[in-house]
């Protein structure tokens, strides 16, 4: 990159820079030597797939974790952040995807949480309120300082987070997927605030999966892939295609669609709608048929409604309308256990929270969903159970010392295989997997996909969701792209990555 004349974003002073920053967790290299600059009063966007190292880099820049090697340079001086508070004291704040506000407290109390202004009579609420009013005026937002945060819309809550960062004189603001939960008009407001902030000399680091949206606001783009920085360029030099090419690269092979025989329609979702607590539809009038032996991939951004769709089919969430038909039988009134017994199994997205019972052994986790299969009368048969566990361990190739080992002793990939093995042990006809590759390494990923391909050859209908394009173009016969609760596009396995990403993006679909 060449540094040029006035007016070029690169000519602005560098406030924060990363030099050869690397981070390892044991043998896992989350970041492998990243260099980039953050310029005063500019927006720098980080692009990258899940697991590319974006969050790790953000955590390092905001002092949450320390790099294994490499340097952070603030205002030309090498610095070492002891923790997040240390970084904040030097003007670096981070706004996480999940907001860290106390919903029951007022805007004022949230902004001054943990550093209340002391007056002669305890907390000086009047002074706090005055300062919050001034902040809100600066941000041109009409938010009353005394409103409880839970009464604000999500977009306004984000503004409160920004106000809190500004109230400690942050010069560098890191925003992790700030628009993922916002409506289009709220995104407009947020972008206006970001422009105001940059005009005042605040630097913004921005992470987003909405590529086009990010392109409208950013001044620089940094692309990460597998812990390495693959590209760095100012806005003028880049376009959507450039980002996608650098994000995805030509990486590993996760297999190809198996030549399995398609049978009857195994699962038929008809006009399904799923509301959230406020009554807004997360899944809107969606219809989808999956045949026996077919592998369908559902691609979509966060909040597209993939998880809700799968959890409704499994029976965790209630639909507000529509039908779920398994092999010709309507099942949407049945409890989860009955759906599993009839052959519909879900491997949930969050295996720690929804997939595993941490207090039980590997074997007990594997047999949990099929207890009925080894119960004779009142009692379970430990011989049948042992056989079932041993078969499962072998068929999904779990690396463990045996069925009695504690589940916590396994690696993430093997834990995921246990969750998959648990559901496969119920002899399902349709298996749904929500982000089956989340948090597991590439080797384990390939093995999971091989398992699914094998299942399809035996006539199993497979549905898996993913937010990584490279996983769409592996074993899936059909790729469904979801956007805001609807199917926005449907492709066969010959489609290009660029087309899939475009179909999931906000502005393209609109």
């Amino acid at each position: 990159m060449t540094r040029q004349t006035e007016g070029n974003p690169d000519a602005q002073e560098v406030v924060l820079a990363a030099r050869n920053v690397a981070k390892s967790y044991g043998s896992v290299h989350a970041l492998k030597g990243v260099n980039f600059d953050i310029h005063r009063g500019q927006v720098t966007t980080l692009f990258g797939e899940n697991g590319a190292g974006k969050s790790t880099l953000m955590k390092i820049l905001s002092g949450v974790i320390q790099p294994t090697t490499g340097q952070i340079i603030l205002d030309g001086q090498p610095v070492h952040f002891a923790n997040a508070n240390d970084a904040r004291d030097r003007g670096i704040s981070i706004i996480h995807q999940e907001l860290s506000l106390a919903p029951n407290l007022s805007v004022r109390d949230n902004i001054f949480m943990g550093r209340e202004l002391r007056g002669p009579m305890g907390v000086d609420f009047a002074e706090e309120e005055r300062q919050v009013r001034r902040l809100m005026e600066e941000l041109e937002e009409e938010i009353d300082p005394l409103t409880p945060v839970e009464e604000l819309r999500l977009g306004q809550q984000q503004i409160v987070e920004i106000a809190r960062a500004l109230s400690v004189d942050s010069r560098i603001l890191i925003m992790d997927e700030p628009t993922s939960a916002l409506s289009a008009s709220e995104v407009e407001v947020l972008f206006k605030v970001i422009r105001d902030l940059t005009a005042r000399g605040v630097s913004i680091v921005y992470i987003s999966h909405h590529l086009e949206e990010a392109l409208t606001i950013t001044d620089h783009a940094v692309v990460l892939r597998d812990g390495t920085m693959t590209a760095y360029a100012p806005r003028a030099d880049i376009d959507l295609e450039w980002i996608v090419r650098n994000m995805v690269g030509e990486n590993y092979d996760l297999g190809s669609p198996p030549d399995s025989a398609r049978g009857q329609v195994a699962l038929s979702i008809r006009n399904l709608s799923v509301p959230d607590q406020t009554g807004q539809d997360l899944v809107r009038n969606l219809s989808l048929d999956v045949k026996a032996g077919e592998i369908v991939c559902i691609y979509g951004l966060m909040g597209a409604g993939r998880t809700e769709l799968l959890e409704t089919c499994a029976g965790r969430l209630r639909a507000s309308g529509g039908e779920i038909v398994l092999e010709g039988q309507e099942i949407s009134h049945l409890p989860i256990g009955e759906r599993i017994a009839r052959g519909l199994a879900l491997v949930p997205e969050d295996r720690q929270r929804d997939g595993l019972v941490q207090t039980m052994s590997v074997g007990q986790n594997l047999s949990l969903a099929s207890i009925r299969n080894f119960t004779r009368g009142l009692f379970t048969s430990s011989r049948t159970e042992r056989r079932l566990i041993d078969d499962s361990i072998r068929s999904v190739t779990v690396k463990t010392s045996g069925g009695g080992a504690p589940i916590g002793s396994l690696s993430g990939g093997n834990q995921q295989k246990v969750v998959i093995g648990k559901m496969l042990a119920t002899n399902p006809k349709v298996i749904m997997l929500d982000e089956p590759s989340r948090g597991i390494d590439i080797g384990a990923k390939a093995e999971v996909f091989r398992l699914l391909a094998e299942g399809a050859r035996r006539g199993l209908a497979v549905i898996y969701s993913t937010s990584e394009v490279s996983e769409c173009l592996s074993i899936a016969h059909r790729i469904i792209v979801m956007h805001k609760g609807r199917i926005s596009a449907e492709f066969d396995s010959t489609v290009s990555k660029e087309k899939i990403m475009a179909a999931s993006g906000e502005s393209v679909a609109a």
Partner: protein
Amino acid sequence: MSATTTAPKQDGFSIGRLLLEGRAFFALIAIIAVFSFLSPNYFTVSNFLIMSSQVAIYGILSVGMLLVILNGGIDLSVGSILALCGVCAGAMMQGVTLEWAGVILYPPVWAVVVLTIAIGAAVGALNGVLVAFFKVPPFVATLGVMYVARGVALLMTNGLTYNNLRGQEALGNTGFNWLGFNRLWGIPISVIVLAVVAVLAGLMLSRSAFGRWLYASGGNERAAELSGVPVRLVKITVYTISGALSAVAGLVLASQLTSAGPTAGTTYELTAIAAVVIGGAALTGGRGGVRGTMLGAFVIGFLSAGLVIIGVSSYWQTVFTGAVIVLAVLMNSIQYGRGGRKS
């Protein structure tokens, strides 16, 4: 790590596991040894039988409590249900007046027992419904039921105690005191009841599908639910069993005293919780077993009885019991804190 102590057994014994699980057992041995040394009256068959029949009441309660705690809940109402059921049994022994028919019914003892257990189960089921369907936190739901049950027991008797539970030959309802006084093969009936309850609960936990459901939904309710475990049914069932066992304990106590008072069983819920905790169960659910809980109940019972025998003030007994509980929880957190729990 050997923190699988409590999950239903699968493999053989290992020394480390035995030592960790055995801490309540070693504590019991130590208690017996110390008091036998201090008092010649302690280490006698008759004393052990007397102490055991006292432990039976707490022991039966703590089996129910164990099931609830394995589910990740707590049941504060067991002491009150015990009193309510005792009073109900007492009322039935005195005769049930049916005004509209103009008769007084004297149900036979077996009917009194069945009805009393049904009442206990119904109150327990109320706890379960509050927790499972109305999402009331178990602590609050059972706290409320604790007060209501105690209040109803007081209302039923106007605060008085039913003293004559022996029944009358002419009315055909004698034999209520059999439960509290008689012996089979020289063993008090109450101890046999405890043994039967414990064995049944142990079989249920280790061998039945329900037991597995209970461990799974206590360890991670969301994962259990997604694996097809009927988590609400499990919840209601454990509170119902706890209520029914409270009724059994109430019957045993009323029979031992041949009287039923509305203030019986006050703070017994705390003793039951203590027994479960000393027995190595985790209050967060999913870990624990009948064997440990029984040892916990005997540790508490034998400790306080020993202190009485050597003449220590009952105030000191309270201090010792408290210290044992804190020590037990400390050991639990060392045991479970070493791994296994989510990071």
